């Protein structure tokens, strides 16, 4: 059985007395020590999916309207808040996009790490502090025994993200959800943080769900990839399969919009148009207004997921035909 099993996840936003669906029937599995990448443009529902797994949707206008999320054999959507708290931070942890705001500005970073430890582990203050120093060393913060008493504003963005990773890893979680962990960092730091995550994963064996809009990041780090568009998984495959054989026009569009260093191109190919807003009703395939190979059928009939190869699913009527 998979470590994380998301089935038919439905999320809707309450607006003007109506519920507008934003995530529609998303399903995926993550095995132990595996890395799943979820890619897509802003507004495609990838972040909401991650928030739903962590149970952070409650109380806002965004609501979980259906589906199940099973983690390690337990259904998360029906857990009591207390049971959920026992799992969060311990067996599953999350890294956020904004390292500048995800640490509490009035706490020393050491206190923030030890708090998580003391919440879940029976540790004395001293033991927790020693462990926090170890963790900071593990995420390659120089002089960890001194930096442990720093405030977040005394650190750089990259360092703060490392501290976040240290916090997330403090209790040896089985699952780590990283929502655009490198988006706010500059490119060299991005590389360091990704390498660090990959290194820690091999050492600690946690499964990772990496959410990103950057196919390059995904290609470098993930075992499996799910490409999301407008609340649905457009294409899902193992990373090697996907990059060899992109079958959905949206995936190809994303790929073509990345500059390639050793090719000299005048113009990058962008996907025309924009992601439809959530209150637009689109019959048929959600991508058809922007799709190069769309035909009349696409605006009438929503394509079902088809299996191209083992573990490679695509939602497109013309998957595999007519490479664009």
């Amino acid at each position, binding site marked *: 059985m998979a470590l994380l099993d998301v089935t038919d996840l439905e999320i809707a936003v309450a607006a003007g007395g109506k519920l507008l669906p934003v995530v529609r029937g998303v399903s995926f599995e993550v095995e132990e020590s595996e890395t799943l990448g979820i890619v897509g443009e802003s507004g495609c529902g990838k972040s909401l999916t991650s928030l739903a797994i962590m149970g952070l949707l409650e109380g806002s206008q965004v609501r979980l309207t259906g589906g199940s999320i099973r983690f390690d054999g337990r259904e998360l959507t029906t857990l009591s808040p207390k049971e959920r708290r026992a799992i969060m931070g311990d067996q599953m942890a999350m890294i956020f996009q904004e390292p500048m705001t995800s640490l*509490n500005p009035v706490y020393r970073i050491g206190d923030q790490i030890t*708090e998580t430890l003391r919440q879940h582990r029976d540790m004395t203050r001293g033991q927790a502090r020693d462990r926090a120093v170890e963790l900071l060393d593990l995420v390659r913060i120089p002089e960890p025994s001194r930096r442990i008493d720093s405030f977040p504003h005394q650190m750089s963005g990259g360092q703060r993200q490392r501290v976040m990773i240290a916090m997330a890893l403090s209790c040896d979680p089985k699952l780590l959800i990283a929502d655009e962990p490198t988006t706010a960092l500059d490119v060299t730091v991005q590389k360091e943080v990704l390498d660090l995550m990959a290194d820690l994963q091999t050492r600690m064996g946690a499964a990772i769900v990496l959410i990103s809009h950057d196919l390059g990041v995904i290609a470098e780090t993930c075992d499996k990839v799910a490409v999301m568009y407008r609340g649905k998984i457009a294409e899902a495959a193992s990373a090697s399969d996907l990059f060899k054989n992109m079958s959905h026009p949206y995936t190809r569009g994303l790929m073509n919009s990345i500059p390639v260093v050793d090719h000299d191109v005048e113009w990058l190919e962008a996907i025309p148009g924009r992601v439809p807003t959530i209150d637009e009703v689109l019959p048929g395939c959600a991508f058809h207004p922007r799709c190069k190979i769309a035909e009349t059928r696409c605006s009438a009939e929503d394509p079902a997921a088809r299996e191209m190869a083992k573990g490679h699913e695509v939602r497109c009527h013309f998957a595999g035909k007519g490479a664009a």
Partner: protein
Amino acid sequence: MNALKKFHAIFRGRKLATAGLIWLCIVAFAAIAAPLIAPFDPLEIDPVARLSEPGTPYLFGTDHFGRDSFSRAIYGARMAVMIGLGSVFVALGTGGLIGMLSAYFTRLGHVLMRGVDVLMAFPALLLALVLMTLLERSATNTIIVIGIVYATTTARILFGMTLKLKGEVFVDAAICSGAGHGSILFRHILPNLISPLLVQASFIFAFAQLQAAALDFLGLGLPPEVPSWGNMLSEERIYVTRAPWLLIFPGALIILSVFSMNLVGDAMRDSIDPRFKDDIAGV
């Protein structure tokens, strides 16, 4: 030792704030040691020496009963400190809790904040007057009433700030690390509210003095025989032309204490909030 270092860090380089702190210390000392410092009994009447000018043995002169104004001023410091601290405690305790809980638990907030709205519909002094007429004149009731009046503004301010903090990523991060409601409210959100709370506390301490003086002046605050700066102003106001020092001294004491409190509050805010730390240590 650690606390002493922090103290030093707050006031180093801030001359005005240090002066304010020294003044507040003097007031606090006078409040604590009033029976030892005061040369006379503040209630002792000397009809022969009534309305005498400042000098010896009556440092601040005497009032129209012939009571020693200096001794009364010293005992007045006692009331000032008591009412200031008490009101701050009541206002921040109730108002702060109402504001934070209302913002955090939205449904509860709908109910609680409407109650706050109703109280805020009254002008501060009017609300204090209404409440005081319902209660007996005493120091405790004055504290409770002033506390309630300023609890409303505190609740409003903390409501807004908590609402904003609740949406911060670090709160989500805390939830993700398995923190419960209590821990999120009091360990993650509350420390971020310390600077507004301190500003609010200094403001309330200062305004409680004025409010208490106003209540005393209108005859609804402390019982008339209690020596407080407000009562001194109230009782001697008709002698303003004959013996102005009877009003100048308690008036100056109120102003100095209020001003000092504000200076100290500002200095504390600047240093407790780490984001202010690298600013120029002015004032």
